[in-house]
């Protein structure tokens, strides 16, 4: 069964299965299945990268909105931090989407591969646990970004630092999201947790909250440009949703460490392949 001779039914089912696995792995490892979708579609299904990015972007909106619904209700994510930083991410996303039209598909593939390699590196190293700052930052206080969240030990307050730096990083995260069709959750969490000194749990839940809005900002442009194909996006969206919903149900704490390692290796290999294919002009 050669890739070029698949029927619509066959392709739909295969893409659905692949997307479901990506969604499952993404939700089990907490690393986001989005980064795997574009390589899966371009490397294995030989889909043109523009269709792949469109489909991936759509599924990123689906999974993040679904996940964010749960986190928001827990009262841990900070909607003000999210809304303020979304100005940066959405602006970046629009820029990324515009860049995608100007930049060659090979260049996009290489950038994608580099991001994958960096993601693999990020998930492999242990996170440096920074002590949350106790001193209020004047800008953060004026914007009322500081907050609190419930922990088993009681309500914990936190203060936000380095707002301009965080804002700039968020712009970059948005641009990556718009250019590559990914959620950029890792960059967002990095900016909030490491740079702005926001507690990790708040960073991850707020990031989840922001990913959908960021993706929507570039999705509109992709739609108008004709990059979003319904026949392809349909199995991707439905598959990723099914996979990530299953993942949240069967989440077992003990297994995830091993899974994350495997996932990191997979991302590493995919990244290398994307760079190679892009450089060789195959994408």
């Amino acid at each position: 069964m050669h890739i070029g001779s698949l029927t619509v039914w066959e392709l739909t089912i295969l893409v659905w299965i692949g997307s479901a696995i990506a969604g499952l792995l993404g939700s089990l490892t907490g690393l986001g299945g989005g980064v795997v979708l574009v390589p899966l579609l371009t490397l294995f299904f030989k889909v043109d990268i523009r269709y792949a990015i469109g489909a991936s972007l759509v599924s990123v909106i689906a999974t993040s909105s679904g996940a964010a619904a749960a986190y928001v209700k827990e009262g841990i994510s900070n909607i003000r931090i999210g809304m303020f930083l979304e100005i940066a991410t959405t602006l970046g996303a629009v820029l990324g989407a515009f860049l995608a039209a100007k930049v060659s598909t090979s260049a996009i593939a290489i950038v994608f591969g580099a991001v994958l390699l960096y993601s693999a590196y990020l998930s492999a190293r242990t996170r440096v646990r920074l002590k949350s700052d106790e001193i209020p930052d004047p800008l953060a206080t004026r914007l009322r970004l500081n907050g609190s969240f419930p922990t088993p030990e009681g309500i914990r307050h936190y203060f936000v630092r380095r707002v301009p730096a965080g804002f700039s990083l968020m712009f970059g995260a948005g641009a990556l999201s718009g250019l590559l069709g990914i959620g950029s959750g890792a960059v967002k969490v990095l900016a909030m947790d490491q740079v702005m000194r926001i507690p990790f749990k708040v960073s991850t839940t707020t990031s989840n909250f922001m990913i959908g809005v960021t993706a929507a900002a570039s999705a509109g442009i992709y739609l108008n440009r004709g990059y979003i194909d319904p026949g392809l996006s349909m199995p991707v969206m439905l598959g990723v949703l099914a996979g990530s919903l299953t993942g949240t149900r069967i989440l077992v704490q003990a297994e995830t460490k091993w899974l994350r390692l495997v996932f990191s290796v997979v991302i590493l290999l995919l990244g290398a392949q994307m760079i190679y294919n892009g450089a060789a002009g195959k994408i």
Partner: protein
Amino acid sequence: MKTIRLPVWTDRRVEDLVGNLLRSGVLLAALVVFSGAVVYLARHGGEPADYRVFHGEPNQLRTISGVLREAFSFQGRAIIQLGLLFLIATPVARVALSIVGFAAERDRTYVGFATIVLAILLYSLFGSS
């Protein structure tokens, strides 16, 4: 004399509503996409599928008016596209709801911030064609 008690707007109330909105939006979008899939696969399932070459979508699947028109003519691909539009609209609706929430809390700064985000989102959907 009866006093009318209005609900107090808090962050938590807004968050609850937002959570419900997000979940409903994704569910609605998934149902529409699935329905479109049924029609599309029933009609075109046996045709060859090839996404290797980029052609760009036909005009009626790129604009909101086009998608609505085709979807109501029961074109499978357009129904799917309509579902995808609902999906893209979900975060947009969320931001709009946040504006209402911030306004109810009398938070003018954040009404402003959320409005900026909404403007960017609407530009992307309507202004970039």
